[in-house]
């Protein structure tokens, strides 16, 4: 981390620099000339009404959707040119909105597949389930409250447990930037509390971008909040500043 983004000499060492990011589908600009910067160890929450382009922003960063124009720099590497798996290997992890796990595999196997070794064809054929792998899987399983269910087929987990499992699959990759899309959506109150606790533990030592609707949850964890509206940034800053912004109130409370 010694290079500095040219476009912003004031603040050094951004982990992620999004500049002029635009994507249009059939002429409709889902994300429009978006720029924001995420520091190391920062927890950034993106909020906004439905259709504001929140999930699309994550899609653009992780390469699921290709940008029409603009740039996404992660540790000064341009991500918009990379393939998805290269972006992951560069250190960006992404959790999907609906729990995205492998139903037919056990919890152990789900985690093992995410273990960052043997990712090529030959590597995967030669992959051995050695002590290091087992220990790491067990350690992560402990963190995500699934230590007793390692041999369970993932299909039979509860909704909340599936969300945790996917978070665990990201943890085992140890990404420098973690992107979570509505991690507590559809959870019971108890699960929600446990998840907040889990997130608070895992967000140490890495930067996190979270999309979330639950304002109490946002208040608890956010360092900085970005409000999106119709593909553009409406407001950005601390939770208190954003909540006081008349433009935000207008969008959320109506006309």
């Amino acid at each position, binding site marked *: 981390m010694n290079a500095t983004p040219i476009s912003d000499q004031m603040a050094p060492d951004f982990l992620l620099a999004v500049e002029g990011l635009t994507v249009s*589908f*059939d002429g409709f600009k*889902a994300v429009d000339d978006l720029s924001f910067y995420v520091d190391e160890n920062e927890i950034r929450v993106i909020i906004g009404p439905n259709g504001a382009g929140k999930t699309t922003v994550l899609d653009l960063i992780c390469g699921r959707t290709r940008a029409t124009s603009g740039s996404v720099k992660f540790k000064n590497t341009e991500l918009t040119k990379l393939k998805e798996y290269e972006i992951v290997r560069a250190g960006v992890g992404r959790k999907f909105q609906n729990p995205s796990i492998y139903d037919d595999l056990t919890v152990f196997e789900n985690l093992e597949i995410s273990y960052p070794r043997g990712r090529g064809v030959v590597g995967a054929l030669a992959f051995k389930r050695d002590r290091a792998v087992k220990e790491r899987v067990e350690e992560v399983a402990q963190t995500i409250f699934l230590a007793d269910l390692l041999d369970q087929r993932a299909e039979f987990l509860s909704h909340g447990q599936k969300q945790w499992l996917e978070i665990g699959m990201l943890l085992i990759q140890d990404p420098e930037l973690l992107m979570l899309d509505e991690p507590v959506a559809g959870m019971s109150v108890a699960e929600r509390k446990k998840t907040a606790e889990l997130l608070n533990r895992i967000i140490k030592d890495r930067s996190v971008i979270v999309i979330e609707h639950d304002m109490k949850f946002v208040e608890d964890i956010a360092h900085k909040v970005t409000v999106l509206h119709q593909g553009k940034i409406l407001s950005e800053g601390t939770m208190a500043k954003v909540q006081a912004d008349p433009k935000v109130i207008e969008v959320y409370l109506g006309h």
Partner: protein
Amino acid sequence: MFMGYSLGELGSIFAMQAFAGLILFSVFVLMSLGLAIIFGQMGVINMAHGEFMILGAYMTYLTSQLFQAYLPSLNGIYFFVAMAVAFVVSGALGMLVEWSMIRFLYKRPLDTLLATWGLSLIMQQAFRSIFGAREVGVELPDWMMGSLPVTDTIEVQINGLFVMGLTTLIAAAVYLLMFRSRWGLQVRAVVQNRTMAGAVGISTERIDRYTFGLGCGIAGIAGSAFTMIGSTGPTAGQLYIVDTFLVVVFGGAASLAGTIASAFTISQAQSTMEFFMSGSMAKVLTLLVVVGILMLRPEGLFVLKVRR
């Protein structure tokens, strides 16, 4: 290879070749329309599509036999009755198949493919058992025989013209039905959001059944039209299935206009190449080019960029 032809003769050859291409185009469009509806709108692969066409052809054959036996005086119009019979029989069988088989497999498209292949084998054998293994042909009414001289050296067959006219009519009818009628609106609504369509009171099951039936019925009409330009055998359906699927996929599965454009491209390419090389090599080259383009542009030639 142009040695020995005068310029005028060459022009005539190209014109006749283009006309042959237009007939092939009509055939492709007729075959593909039904499939484009079923595959494009429902995402279902019906491998028995060719057999539904052959069913229509056999229905036409039966009707012509009946007219010859009992109503020889009305022989000039039997074909219109036959088309209706073909549409109804193929469509009804299609709805039966949807009800008994397809509806259980909507979430398993690859399995649908295998099951409908099984259906196609059963239909083929049924045709063979009922109508015999030999190819059958219908007797064209007098007004459809012969050809119209356009110039001294160019003439066009009336049955070919008839098939082209028929194709235009059917394509227009399908367009109106899918994009200008309330029913078509419901079909498209179900395609785009099944849950929501159900929630606003559209019976998605009924829409599925009728859509599938319509696709099969159009296949029946296509088969009926085939009898005008060729004979029918129990396994003739299989010959067309690859072409038909490629036409639909090449055109971009969800677009009717794309299907027609792609039918035009493929048929013209094939009939033009047939002039320069053997029929089998023309076919191989055409198919290879289509597959090659699909490799480069898998979403088909005529689709807009949409959000994934």
